[in-house]
């Protein structure tokens, strides 16, 4: 089906064409035989699971990486970019997920950073501001070019990035997850800007996990899976389910393992009245033996904050926590760990792993006393054996125990964090976005591990922003909205719509 779609790309002017692109990193084939083309005035979405090769492809287009084979043509000319400066010079701009603005400079200064209009040695401020205002007007947003960027909302910053890209006369605009931190209203404004740009002939490459919002703007869609090219089609010819099926490569039922756990009635862990002023209030839930409890909700609803406070990483103003019927007093992560609580952070690199340190050091980090004598001297044999045990148990793919973890894939890094906590033999485990940035095979493995842990009687909490994951992996779901639990639902009796209903705060069910 891919070939026929490419043959049909004649009508509009093709801005950018990539043919048979392959890219290898040591030990990993990131892309093989990928085709892609972008026409003037279209929005072309690139879809794929995490690890499918979307960002590698974008980095090749913008010149960060060079392909091992394949050809790139831009406006009919063969191109080979060896840096982002070169791709920018011909008119390809990328707007990153994490925005690249200087917070302490003004909007105008950011738009024209390193290209300031000058009068002799001085910056021509009047010209600078006028030019910046023209850029902002062109996308129809009302932002004062003289305010500092740090005073702007995320959505406004995104608009500034777009204005900056336009000031570079970008013919191709790459947007990487542009709506991931926008409210519904802000996203609508962005879509309006995108439609205007389309009308002006800009070609836009659009990457997003939110397939439903693509209906608003996307013209064509290319699907990648595991670094391979799958298909390119007109968006109108596909249903969202078609796209998902192509991304996943198997039917959705197989995405989650068959549960081996048997939920019981015995309550292992319970929390009630948990409050941290201004962050969350009156949080109460129970976890029963053999079940996985989901925390669902929008970003910033307080799910992570509750887990961190229970674990002791953040302070708690009031509330009680009981484990196996005993009340716990937790003021520091050390208390939480002692009590048998494990928290697997949502941001592996920021606070889950010491990424410069080797695999074994990370695996042992939470329980060094288990592999050392009472004088604090490490028993190297125990250290090695225990590390090896978890590498084998969790099937962590690493060349050696001394490999620094930053060189491992996201899935293996996540397994190392799981191994670190398993070594402590915890009673309760909070998994915070455990599959973010992980390829699909590793996701399945992590789901299996979670199920197994629950089956072994460990209370498991899954915090996830991906509703299908919450629905596929949990037994009950606590839905968060604005720092409160608005509903606790039984997974097999609910659906995405009901969860979203409570997560958006439009309804509240008495508990």
């Amino acid at each position, binding site marked *: 089906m891919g070939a026929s779609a490419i043959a049909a790309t004649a009508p509009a002017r093709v801005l950018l064409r990539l043919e048979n692109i392959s890219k290898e990193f*040591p030990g990993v084939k990131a892309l093989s035989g990928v085709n892609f083309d972008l026409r003037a005035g279209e929005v072309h979405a690139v879809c794929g699971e995490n690890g499918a090769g979307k960002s590698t492809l974008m980095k090749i287009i913008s010149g960060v990486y060079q392909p091992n084979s394949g050809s790139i043509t831009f406006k009919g000319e063969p191109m080979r970019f060896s840096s982002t400066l070169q791709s920018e010079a011909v008119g390809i701009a990328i707007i990153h997920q994490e925005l690249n603005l200087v917070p302490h400079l003004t909007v105008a200064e950011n738009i024209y950073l390193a290209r300031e209009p000058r009068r002799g040695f001085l910056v021509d401020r009047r010209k600078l501001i006028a030019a910046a205002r023209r850029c902002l007007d062109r996308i129809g947003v009302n932002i004062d070019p003289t305010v500092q960027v740090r005073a702007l909302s995320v959505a406004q910053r995104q608009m500034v990035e777009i204005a900056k890209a336009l000031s570079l006369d970008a013919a191709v605009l790459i947007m990487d997850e542009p709506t991931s931190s926008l409210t519904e209203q802000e996203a609508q404004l962005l879509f309006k800007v995108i439609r205007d740009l389309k009308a002006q002939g800009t070609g836009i490459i659009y990457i997003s996990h939110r397939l439903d919002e693509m209906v608003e703007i996307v013209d064509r869609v290319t699907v990648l899976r595991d670094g391979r090219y799958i298909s390119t089609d007109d968006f109108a010819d596909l249903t969202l389910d078609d796209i998902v099926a192509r991304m996943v490569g198997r039917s959705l039922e197989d995405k989650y393992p068959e549960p081996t756990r048997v939920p019981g009635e015995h309550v292992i862990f319970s929390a009630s009245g948990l409050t941290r002023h201004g962050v969350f209030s009156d949080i109460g839930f129970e976890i029963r033996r053999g079940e996985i409890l989901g925390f669902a909700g929008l970003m910033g609803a307080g799910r992570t904050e509750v887990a961190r406070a229970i*674990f002791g*990483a953040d302070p708690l103003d009031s509330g009680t926590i009981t484990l196996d019927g005993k009340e716990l007093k937790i003021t520091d*992560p*050390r208390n939480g*760990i*002692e009590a048998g609580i494990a*928290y697997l*952070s949502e941001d592996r690199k*920021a*606070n*889950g*792993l*010491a*990424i*410069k*340190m*080797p695999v074994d*050091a990370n695996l*042992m*980090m*939470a329980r*060094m*006393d288990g592999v*050392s004598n009472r*004088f*604090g*001297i*490490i028993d*190297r044999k125990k250290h090695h054996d225990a590390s090896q045990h978890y590498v084998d148990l969790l099937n962590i793919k690493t*060349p050696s125990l*001394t*490999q*620094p973890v930053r*060189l491992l894939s996201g899935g293996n890094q996540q397994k190392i964090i799981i191994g*670190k906590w398993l070594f402590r033999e915890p009673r309760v485990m909070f998994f915070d976005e455990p599959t973010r940035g992980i390829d699909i095979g590793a996701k399945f493995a992590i789901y299996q591990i979670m199920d197994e842990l629950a089956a072994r009687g460990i209370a498991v909490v899954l915090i996830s922003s991906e509703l299908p994951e919450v629905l596929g992996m949990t037994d009950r779901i606590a839905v968060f909205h604005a720092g409160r639990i608005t509903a606790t639902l039984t997974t097999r009796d609910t659906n995405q719509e009901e969860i979203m209903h409570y997560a958006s705060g439009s309804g509240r069910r008495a508990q």
Partner: protein
Amino acid sequence: MADVTGEKDMQQRAAPTVKTGRLSERQKDIIQKFAALASLVVLTAFFSATSSAFFTVGNGMTIALQVTSIALLGIGATYVIITGGIDLSVGSVLALAGVVAALAVKELQLPVWLGMVLGILTGSLCGMINGIVVTKLRLPPFIATLGMMLIARGVALQITGARAVSGLGESFGVLGNGSLLRFESIDEQGFPVVAFPGIPYPVVLMIIIAVASAYVLNRTVFGRHVYAIGSNADAARLSGVNVSRVTIYTYLISGTLAGLTGCVLMSRLVTAQPNEGVMYELDAIASAVIGGTSLIGGVGTISGTFIGAFVIGILRNGLNMNGVSAFTQQIIIGLVILATVWIDQLRNRR
């Protein structure tokens, strides 16, 4: 140190390295260490060729003695820098410690050993205060230890009235001037002939402390936690590491070693100088950095710092012997620091 086994590893892995064009972390590590060690050998060879007096047992002992203060301070600096901190106060702290030891002996008539213990504890106290200011008041380490640098120097000058403390008696000089295994004989005219100059006590002390601190850093839970904090303090905290306590200990170690260095230095002069040790903190940091310790934290070894200290010591000594002026020496050492750190960054760039 692990260099002997490391060489074997490198040979075994050399072949696949060529194919992939990428080095494993361990290989990079070994190459780094060998690079520092190689430059040490090159320097030694060069100075031996240019000056006949350089490569002698006597001069070797002189260099080792000169290196002790840099190495001891460098070891402390390594601990602190691995956690991502820095200690600018050690030069002042060593002066204060030495002065306290001397005054305790002279004014309070305490025995020499007790005076020196008091001096060392003074260093520990300063280090602990640094650690508390960094972890509890949450001041940046640069500022916290800059403050201590001024305070300790000020106190040292204040309590001595800015005058050197002398007349301490011969026993005060034993630690700095005595030697282990010194062999002498008396010739026909009755003059002593030195068969072997002996290993100066400070050198013995330096070697024991270097080995012990390398052991602590590599083989103990505490050492592991030091690396973990420097690599990712948040991850360490969430794994149950007592980040504040471990961090305070590293400053405590740095301060204690500064105190010890102060006692050794003042003992060598048999006089306590409140102006001693100015800018020594920079030598200490330089030796750690030359030895491959990263100022970002998480990376560093005692053996590297030890080599770094000797690179500085041999440069100074060899240049002196060749009649190079002190000013030119500074320029050369400055260039060496820039070059080694630049090489280190090339190594880490991917």
